[in-house]
């Protein structure tokens, strides 16, 4: 930590107006010159914190601009969630494409990126998905440094409990697949699981704990910070972040090529438009006459009142989709299954609340008297095989990033990285080469869970 701080201080270019220490008004002009160009923002560092403290914290510049839409951009990204913002960031950073706008109908981070339970992991099984998610985890590991924004990535581990002999076999197989792809995995015995998470019910006769698959490098992060960090990073490279700007149409020329979008803030031209609208992907794609292999479903999450430290990892219950972690504020955060029917309502139904609480009581009966503070829902883009799309579409100039189901938060860095690559080069990177729209027609579905084309079962 200390050495990295020193490193940042060294990279900091002293501005000519060093006297800004005594002249707080001049501080705003103190911007960092990045190696790869004119990335402009005030760096968050111990030094700048000190300087600002001396000025009474009155002169922190805003983290990103609020520009008026220009007439045209090289690339427009629809959706200011994690994936859209990350895409814009990597378009600028990795590919030098900076004449970019991110168009968001509400406010940045008001969608699923701000509603999820923040689990980050790469404990996947299939060869089409492991390299992608492991690359994402690697990007997470350097993200706070890269963005100069603390995303509070906490590698507290994710422990998947298993409850039968068959599940032990499946977990070990998964762990071996992970290790073969360079990820980390350990199988813990029942006793080791109980030691790691003291509250779990090891005497549950219906769902006895047989052991658990642990990924030590997995964990969670602060969701808002991920959106804000990418937003500030992209803005620093000159990307325009257009909020309160809903896309209402996709404009195409006579040949059918995309030439721009229509929004509530006027028409904007661009020859490349990338959709990253998560739960609203089908809705937005329909503006270009595209039907997707996606249904929108809602997923709920829950948080309890704050408690003393109880669980220092993320633990999942193998029966019924349920998982639990403890936030830095002390609240227990629960995630659960989909409500099960198509929905664009960002609110959930009570049967799912009941099922979630039942699962919680099976896993950890000691929390039975803890009160729930809040629960909410987000709209998921559930794909037909449970896997995402990062690809070109049959429409020239239209690119798609969608189908994240309930696992897209962990994917945010790699998703943006791969989508930027696909848009910039007009072809996918090896990491996302399988995530195409035509994989069903070709017979190459990436069926994570093996349940077939029934999105509410993934």
């Amino acid at each position, binding site marked *: 930590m200390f050495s990295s701080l020193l490193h940042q201080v060294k990279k900091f270019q002293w501005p000519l107006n060093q006297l800004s220490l005594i002249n707080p008004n001049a501080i705003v002009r103190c911007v960092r010159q990045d190696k790869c160009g004119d990335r402009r923002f005030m760096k968050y560092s111990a030094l700048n914190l000190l300087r600002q403290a001396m000025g009474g914290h009155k002169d922190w510049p805003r983290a990103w601009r609020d520009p008026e839409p220009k007439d045209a951009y090289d690339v427009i990204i629809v959706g200011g969630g994690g994936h859209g913002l990350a895409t814009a960031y990597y378009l600028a950073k990795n590919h030098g494409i900076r004449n970019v706008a991110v168009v968001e109908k509400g406010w940045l981070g008001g969608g699923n990126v701000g509603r999820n339970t923040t689990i980050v992991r790469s404990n996947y099984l299939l060869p089409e998905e492991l390299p992608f998610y492991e690359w994402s985890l690697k990007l997470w590991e350097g993200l706070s440094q890269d963005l100069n924004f603390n995303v509070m990535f906490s590698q507290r581990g994710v422990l998947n409990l298993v409850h039968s002999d068959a599940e032990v076999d499946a977990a070990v197989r998964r762990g071996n697949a992970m290790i073969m792809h360079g990820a980390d995995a350990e199988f813990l015995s029942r006793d080791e699981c109980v030691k790691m998470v003291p509250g779990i019910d090891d005497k549950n006769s219906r769902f006895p704990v047989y052991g658990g698959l642990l990924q030590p490098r997995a964990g969670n992060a602060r969701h808002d910070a991920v959106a804000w960090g990418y937003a500030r990073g992209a803005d620093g490279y000159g990307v325009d972040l257009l909020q309160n700007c809903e896309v209402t149409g996709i404009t195409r020329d006579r040949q059918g090529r995309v030439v721009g979008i229509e929004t509530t803030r006027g028409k904007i031209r661009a020859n490349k438009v990338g959709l990253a609208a998560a739960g609203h992907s089908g809705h937005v794609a329909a503006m270009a006459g595209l*039907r*997707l292999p996606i*249904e929108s479903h809602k997923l709920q999450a829950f948080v309890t009142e704050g408690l003393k430290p109880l669980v220092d990892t993320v633990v999942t219950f193998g029966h019924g989709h349920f998982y639990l972690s403890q936030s830095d504020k002390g609240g227990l955060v629960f995630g659960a299954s989909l409500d099960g029917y*198509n*929905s*664009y309502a960002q609110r959930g139904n009570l*049967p799912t609340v009941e099922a979630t609480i039942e699962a919680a009581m099976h896993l950890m009966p000691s929390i039975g008297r803890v009160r729930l503070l809040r629960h909410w829902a987000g709209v998921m883009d559930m794909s*037909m095989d449970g896997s995402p799309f990062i690809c070109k579409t049959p429409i020239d100039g239209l690119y798609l990033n969608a189908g994240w189901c309930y696992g897209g938060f962990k994917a945010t860095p790699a998703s943006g990285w791969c989508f930027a690559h696909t848009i910039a080069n007009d072809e996918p990177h090896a990491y996302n080469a399988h995530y195409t729209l035509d994989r*069903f027609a070709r017979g190459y579905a990436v069926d994570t869970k093996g349940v077939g084309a029934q999105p509410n079962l993934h």
Partner: protein
Amino acid sequence: MRIKCPVCGERPLEEYAYRGDAKVQRPRTHAPDQANAWHDYVYLRDNPKGRQKEHWRHSGGCGAWLVVDRDTYTHEIFSVRLTKAARRRAK
């Protein structure tokens, strides 16, 4: 959300199973020129934000398959009727 089964009356959600969009039509044959039609039937959905007719089954009740006309944004239910097959069986 509660669904009013034409046979059993208004029942809670836990009694129902969801199948999805009732509009998609299963192709009649397996002829090779139907491959695209099969792909569209199995995989592609309109996924509207608004009214949609969809299949539900009263699995925890009478077992009938239903067509429910529902708004996917407000969850308002406009009508619930038995599917053609269920009506035939009832006769």
